[in-house]
């Protein structure tokens, strides 16, 4: 199940150059590149002539994308403007063009009806390029359905078991006060762990020597943006009342883009608002979270294997699933709305 009329992250900005990059997004092949004058282009990655991926081609003069096979050239709207040895160009020689925009160091692509593409609906990921924050991120290719990753980030009890060498400890599962709030297109899971030991990553980054109050606020925005506001401060300094003294405050930022039904592009970054000019801190946090996320990827891929083996095997829900279940309900509703809208459009 995919939602089409949403922005998705297609790439990090530094991945896109005048060398075309091919990427599958929502089962559609897309080629991304920049022209010599810096314009960002996203086209269907399939030559309308003999269906070779256009990403095997190259950018030539005038910012045209030249197919590797027979040298047909396409402009940034996907229109074929040259056929070597042929004067007339059939109008059907056109590659689909996708709305594409660069923001927060990410390349955003709109996979649905281009008439509905409004950049104002891109979620706020300012932590990736604000001077008040330092951030470092990467991209993971995951052999699992994208919704397994959404589930994972909405239930952080797993930190106690999957990430005990980095960001997890027993308190995350056993001692969290959890609240789930929902609105039509959002889920917010709030978790507080009061007066508990800090997990290893927090000890390294925050230098805590005594118990901490730790917070995790998980914001889910469809289709698959998870912005986590996390941190900890020494117990008794007032964090639950909104005063952060001597603590660490971070954002864990996730943009999950389905590649196929069973594979996913997982874009993420870790941002911090303390020691913002200290690259060692930025690197440390990034490496710690990367270690944890690779542990998650192993879980997702193993889950996908057992799901593929028997997709109809039942699963049961526990209290910690509330946030993920609410998110899935929103996604199911939005999917039904897209199906209904497509039917209306087809009937017109």
């Amino acid at each position, binding site marked *: 199940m995919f939602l089409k009329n949403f922005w998705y992250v297609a790439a990090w900005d530094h991945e896109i150059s005048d060398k075309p990059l091919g990427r599958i997004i929502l089962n559609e092949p897309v080629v991304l590149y920049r022209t010599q004058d810096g314009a960002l282009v996203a086209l269907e990655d399939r030559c309308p002539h003999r269906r070779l991926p256009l990403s095997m081609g190259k950018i030539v003069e005038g910012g045209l994308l030249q197919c590797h096979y027979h040298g047909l050239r396409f402009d940034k709207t996907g229109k074929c403007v040259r056929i070597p040895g042929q004067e007339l160009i059939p109008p059907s020689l056109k590659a689909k063009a996708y709305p594409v925009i660069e923001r927060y160091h990410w390349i955003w692509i709109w996979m649905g009806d281009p008439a509905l593409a409004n950049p104002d609906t891109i979620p706020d990921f300012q932590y990736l390029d604000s001077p008040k924050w330092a951030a470092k991120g990467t991209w993971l290719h995951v052999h699992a359905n994208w919704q397994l990753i959404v589930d994972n980030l909405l239930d952080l009890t797993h930190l106690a078991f999957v990430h005990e060498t980095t960001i997890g400890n027993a308190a995350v599962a056993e001692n969290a006060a*959890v*609240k*789930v709030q*929902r609105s039509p297109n959002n889920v917010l899971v709030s978790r507080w762990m009061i007066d508990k030991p800090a997990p290893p990553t927090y000890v390294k980054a925050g230098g805590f020597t005594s118990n901490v109050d730790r917070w995790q606020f998980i914001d889910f925005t469809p289709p698959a943006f998870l912005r986590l506001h996390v941190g900890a401060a020494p117990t008794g300094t007032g964090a639950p009342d909104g005063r952060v003294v001597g603590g660490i405050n971070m954002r864990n930022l996730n943009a999950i883009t389905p590649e196929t039904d069973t594979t996913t592009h997982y874009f993420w970054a870790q941002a911090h608002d303390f020691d913002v000019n200290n690259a060692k801190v930025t690197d440390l946090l990034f490496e710690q979270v990367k270690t944890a996320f690779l542990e998650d990827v192993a879980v997702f891929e193993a889950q996908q294997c057992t799901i593929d083996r028997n997709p109809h095997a039942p699963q*049961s*829900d526990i*209290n910690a*699933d*509330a946030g993920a*279940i*609410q998110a899935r309900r929103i996604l199911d509703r939005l999917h039904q709305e897209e199906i209904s809208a497509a039917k209306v459009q087809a009937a017109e």
Partner: protein
Amino acid sequence: MIGQINVTRMTEDRTGVRTWHRVASASALVEGQPIAAHIGDIPVAVVRADGAIYVIDDVCTHEYALLSGGFVEDCTIECPLHQARFDLKTGRCLEPPADRDLRTYAVKVEGDDVLAAMEAA
């Protein structure tokens, strides 16, 4: 049924007088935000909704989810997992997959204390 007998013993003394249990601080109870509490061994949810305070069984009659983690709308509470819905005033089950009603409890407020007791049989 053994559970029922224990409950009766716990909430009434030998003369059958109702025993009240403190389950929440009235000032800390936010409209629409349930909290979990206990009456003896019984998990209950304490809910302020439409200005009144209700105490109901916390465990959904479907599959053990805690309703104190659920969603309050129009004097009903929705289970956070499978959308079963119950009337806060009567405990009546309004939506599947649950099919049994919840027990409700008598409530009174003394000072800042929210007190609850078993309803008279």
